[in-house]
């Protein structure tokens, strides 16, 4: 019945259509609509041409330029020497580290890009590591830098884009306290008699041990994917893993360069897990990238071109050596070159959190 009525009404409209058109034509509306229809297909081209000369819609680069600020997310959990814990200085509260120096480089390059009339000020948003991704997706940040590994499976959430690496010689490493753990792993390498297979040696060597990794970091993803026979403890931060006494942790997995720094300068009771010849044991290679959102094409090209130029000029290598190899006091560097920050989504009394066993394995 409803279908029948619809057909009737369509028939009646079709019958009356010439009459309506005649009426509108006498008012000059039809010629206008026809003209508009003919013009519309070329409208996009005209729009593009105009935008080339004078950008109509503000893209992310012009937004940064007009704002005069680069909103950068940085992790509150310290990833020394990439991000040191915030300290108090004569200038106020400051953070420093390789990642912070890189942010300065990006801001300086943006100042030049924006015409150099006013400096682009990097505004650091200190937030929990896990919240960086949320803050980015919610549009509160232009980019974030926190020794983020971009080439480990599962590390790239949808909608985010990772730059070319600014740090290549990374990788996942391990630190231990008990020498017998190192002996177990080395024994596995000896069994391999020259046919080195790190993954197999690690899987057998760490079997049955309690291994800690920081939630959401690449070491966590590595352990979840590759180390089935361990008791995996997921910690909110690296200091939380170090502080945990019950259960007793045998191995802590994290980025090798971070572990190298903290075993030398922060937690001397811990040592790097090494191969039989004393060289550091890298479980898998990893490179660090700057992260922004998928849609920011102009910013992405800007970042990649900048990182390539910094690599070409040797500036990145100098920065890496400066933070990873030189002997220095981070507090002094924070005073001289650290950046102030805004705190978002961090409780007033920040604690490094806790550890708990992974449930679904």
């Amino acid at each position: 019945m409803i279908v029948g009525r619809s057909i009737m009404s369509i028939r009646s409209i079709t019958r009356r259509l010439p009459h309506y058109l005649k009426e509108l034509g006498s008012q000059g509306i039809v010629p206008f609509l026809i003209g508009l229809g003919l013009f519309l297909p070329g409208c996009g081209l005209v729009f593009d041409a105009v935008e080339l000369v004078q950008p109509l819609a503000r893209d992310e680069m012009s937004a940064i330029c007009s704002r005069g600020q680069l909103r950068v997310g940085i992790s509150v959990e310290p990833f020394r020497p990439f991000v040191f814990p915030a300290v108090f200085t004569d200038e106020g509260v400051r953070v420093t580290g390789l990642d912070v120096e890189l942010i300065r480089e990006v801001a300086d390059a943006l100042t030049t890009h924006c015409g150099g009339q006013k400096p682009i000020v990097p505004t650091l948003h200190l937030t929990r590591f896990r919240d960086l991704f949320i803050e980015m997706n919610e549009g509160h940040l232009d980019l974030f830098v926190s020794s983020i590994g971009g080439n480990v499976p599962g590390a790239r959430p949808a909608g985010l884009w990772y730059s070319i690496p600014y740090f290549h010689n990374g990788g996942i490493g391990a630190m231990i306290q008990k020498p017998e753990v190192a002996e177990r792993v080395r024994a596995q390498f000896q069994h391999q008699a020259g046919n080195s297979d790190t993954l197999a040696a690690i899987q057998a060597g760490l079997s049955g041990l309690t291994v800690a990794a920081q939630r959401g970091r690449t070491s966590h993803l590595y352990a979840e994917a590759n180390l089935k026979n361990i008791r995996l403890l997921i910690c909110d931060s690296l200091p939380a893993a170090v502080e945990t006494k019950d259960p007793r942790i045998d191995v802590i997995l994290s980025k090798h360069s971070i572990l190298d720094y903290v075993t030398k300068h922060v937690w001397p009771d811990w040592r790097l897990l090494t191969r039989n010849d004393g060289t550091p044991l890298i479980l898998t290679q990893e490179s660090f990238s700057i992260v922004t959102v998928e849609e920011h094409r102009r910013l992405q090209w800007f970042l990649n071109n900048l990182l390539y130029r910094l690599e070409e000029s040797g500036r990145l290598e100098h920065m890496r050596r400066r933070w990873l190899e030189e002997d220095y006091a981070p507090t002094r560097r924070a005073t001289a070159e650290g950046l102030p920050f805004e705190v978002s989504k961090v409780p007033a009394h920040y604690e490094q959190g806790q550890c708990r066993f992974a449930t679904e394995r």
Partner: protein
Amino acid sequence: MPFRNRKVSKKDILMKSRVFSVISLSLVFNLAWSSIGWAQAPREETEKTAQHLALLLNVGRLIVERNQTLINDPRKGDKGFTPEVFEHEVVDEFIRQTHIDLKDLPTHLPSLAKELLPLLLESSKEVVADAQLVINQRGIGYKNFIPATFGSQAARKFSNRSHVKIKQTTLNPRNLKNTPDAYEENGLRRLATQPASDTSITEWIDNDTILRALTPIYYSKDCLACHGNPKGILDISGYPREGAQEGDLAGAISIQIPMKSR
């Protein structure tokens, strides 16, 4: 009668002129004396205010120093060293040292001091508030929230809000922003040759329009962990130790109060 009168009037005139001279002189003297007294009072008040300000900043530094073990305790998250706790300790210590209650300023205090002491206390509290994230980090030991960094920030915040400038300075500053100007350098050299004392150097410069005061700070035992021996070896914050001894001159709190802007 008029003739007699005229004779008398000559004498009178002489007498009157003498009396007039004496009265005029005494008037001029009185006026001069009262203007000296009028100028003297604000000068004394300004000098007193400078002393109180230096003392209050020093008390703030002392409270930060006393709480170093708590602030740098890596096992604790919330240290409880809030701006209110800091204020309470500062008020108590200030009463102990001066018998002046910062929460109920006495009427005899110079009006300038009544205006500026609460402002410095508020600025100091704000510095402690700004540092809460750093202070309450668990798992982190040394945080560089020390008397020197606290003092620099409190002095800067206060100076930005008033016509009075406060600065910590020393002959060999770790932070170049604390480099002494010519006046301060001269004063620090004088203080360095004198035996340790709480007495400030106070002087009026630029035709008595600006008060400059330098209150010495001496190294205490706690300071020597970073500023003592072995000289040249880096301390925890990465600066070379100065090789200082307990009681040596560490620097001074420099205060400038312009008279005109009152």
